[in-house]
C-alpha cells in the first residue's frame, strides 16, 4: 500500500474514532463533516478529559496500550494546544507501521 493510501486509511480511522467519541455530544462545535484538517480543540471543542477518552479509544481500536502518546501530546516538555486529524493519523502511521 502506498504512503498516501496508508495515511488516508489512518485519517479515515481517526475520523471514525472521533465521530464515535462525539456521537453523544449535544454541544459539538463542528459545522459540516470532519476532514483531515479538523482541529479537535478549536473545532470539536475538546477539553483535557476528552483527550483522555480519545487516547483510550485509539488504544482500544488498535488493541495497543504502549503507544507513546507523549510524542503526540507534548512538544519540548509542554502540552500542545490543539491537534488536527492529520497529525493524529501521522502519529498512528509512524507508530503502527
Amino acid at each position, binding site marked *: 500500500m502506498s504512503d498516501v493510501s496508508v495515511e488516508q486509511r489512518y485519517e479515515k480511522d481517526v475520523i471514525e474514532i472521533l465521530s464515535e467519541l462525539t456521537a453523544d455530544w449535544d454541544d459539538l462545535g463542528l459545522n459540516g463533516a470532519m476532514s483531515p484538517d479538523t482541529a479537535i480543540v478549536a473545532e470539536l471543542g475538546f477539553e*483535557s*478529559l476528552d483527550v483522555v477518552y480519545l487516547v*483510550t479509544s485509539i488504544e482500544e481500536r488498535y488493541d495497543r496500550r504502549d503507544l507513546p502518546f*507523549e510524542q503526540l501530546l507534548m512538544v519540548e*516538555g*509542554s502540552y500542545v494546544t490543539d491537534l488536527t486529524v492529520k497529525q493524529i493519523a501521522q502519529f498512528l502511521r509512524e507508530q503502527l507501521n
Partner: protein
Amino acid sequence: MRTVLFGLDGATYSVLDPLMEQGLMPNLQKCRAAGVRCLLESTPLPITPQAWTTLATGRSMGHHGIHDFVRVEQTDSGIILRFNTGRDRHVPTIWKYLSDCGKRITALNYYGLAPAEPVNGHTMPGFVPGRYLKRSSFPADLFSRLEQVPHFDVGVLGLDLDIEKEGLAEMPPDRWEEWIQLHIERERAWFATMEYLMEHEPSDLTAIVFDGVDKLQHLAYRFLDPKYVPANPTPWEAKIIKLCHSYFKQIDNFLGRTLELLGEDGRLFIASDHGFTASDEILYINKYLHDLGHLRWNGEVDVDENESIVVERLTKQMGLYDWRNTRAAALTPSCNGVYILNVPADEYEAFRDKLIEELYALRGEDGGQVITEVKKREDWFAGPWMHRAPDLTLTLRDHGFLSVLNGTDAVVPRKSPVGTHHPLGVLWGVGPGLKVNATAKQCNILDVASLLVHSVGVEIPAEYEGKFPADLYEESYLAANPPNVSWGEKAAPAAAEVQVAQQDTMDSEEELVLTQRLRSLGYIE
C-alpha cells in the same frame, strides 16, 4: 442475601452523629439502633481512586495499581500525567467477580467503572463527564430504559471538572448556594437511577456512591462539624448551614427509601472511602523544596493567593518546573506525594534519607512539626504496581492536601478552615445476622470486599488481603453461615504477588520470570 452498599464518599461520624442528634437524619438514627457500626480505616493515601478501588477489589494499591486520579510517567519527551481509568486497575472488582459467580450486580457512580466491563447487571461509572456516561455504562441499552426515570439527566449526573475544582479553592459567597444545590440535584439523579433499578431490575448486590458528601465537606466543613460551626451565624452563614442540612436530609430520605425497597430480608451496609476533618493551613511543598534547592521553577512563577492547591489546567502544571534541574517535586495535590527525579540510582537512598529528614524538619508559624509522617513507597504500597506511587507520601498534621503551587511561605494559615480527608471513615451494617445497637472493632477498607461477597452468599477469594470483619455479626449467625474462602485458581498469583512485595533485591532475571508468570495468569499486561 440481597445486599445494598450505600457509599457515602468521605462520610465521618464527626458530622453524621451531630446531624442525627439534631434529628436531621432519622433513618440513619434507626440504622444506629437496629444495626452495628465501626470506624473504617482507609488506604495509606485516603483518596477516592485508591480507597474505592481497594474497597471494590479487596486488594491494596500495589496490587490493583490505582494510586491517584492521574499517574506520573517519565518518558523521553519529559514527565507526563496520564489519567487512570478502569483499564489501569489490574485485579478484578467484586462487581465482576460476583457477576462471574452468577450473581446479579448494580454498581452506580463508583470510581473506575469506565470503560464499561460486561457484567450480569448494570454499571454506570462516577467521575465521568456527562458526554461519555452513556458509552461508559453497561449494558448498552441501559440509558434507553433510564431516560424515562424522573430526575435522570446526563448533564447533571456527569462530572464537570470546572465545577469540582471550584470547591477546592476559595469560592465567592454568591456561588455557594448554586454549587451546593447542584450537588443536591446530582444525588437526586443518581438515587432516582438506583431506585428505578431496584424496583424494576433488582440485583443481588446494589451499590451506589453519593460523592456530594465529600464535595460539600471540602467546601463547607466549618458549617457541618459542630467544632467549627459559628455560634452566631451571619444570615449568609445560616442560609448555607440550612442548605447543607437539606443535602444530608435528602441523603437520609434516600436511605429510608432504600431500606424500604430492600425489605427486612435484605442487608444494608453504609461505607465511606475515608473520613473528614478540618485543614487550617496550606503547605506549599514545592516552595519548600525550592528553598531547599531541590526544585527549580521554570522562570517566574506566580505566587498563589487563593488558597489553591492545583493549577487551573493540569496540562499547564508540567510547564511550572525546570525538569532538568529539579530533584524533588510534588506533581499532583491529591497524591500528597513527592517524586524524586534526576537522582542517580547509587545516590538515591542517601538523597531520599536526607530529604525525609528535611521534610520532618519543616515547622509552621507556631514552631510545630507540619509533616507528621513520610511514607516510603516500598513500605506502604508494595506490590507489582508500586512504581505508580510517588517516592514519598506525606501526612500533614492537619491531614491537609499539599498545594503544588508557589506560595509566599511554605506554610500559610488559611483564612477559614476547609474540609480535608481523614484516614478514619465509617462502616455500618443493618440486617439479618448483624449485631443490633452495637459498636464493633475498627475495620480496614480492605475488609469490605469480603463482607459484601459473603453477604451475597459467595466464597471469598483467597487473594483478598483484608480480614473478614466477623465482629459485625452475631456469633450464632456466623456459625451457621461461615465466611468460606475460595482457594481457586487465583491463589497462585496471590502468592506470586506477595513475593514481588517481599523481594526488594530481586535481580532482573527473576523479575522477568515473575513478570512473565503474572502476565500469563492475566494479572498484568
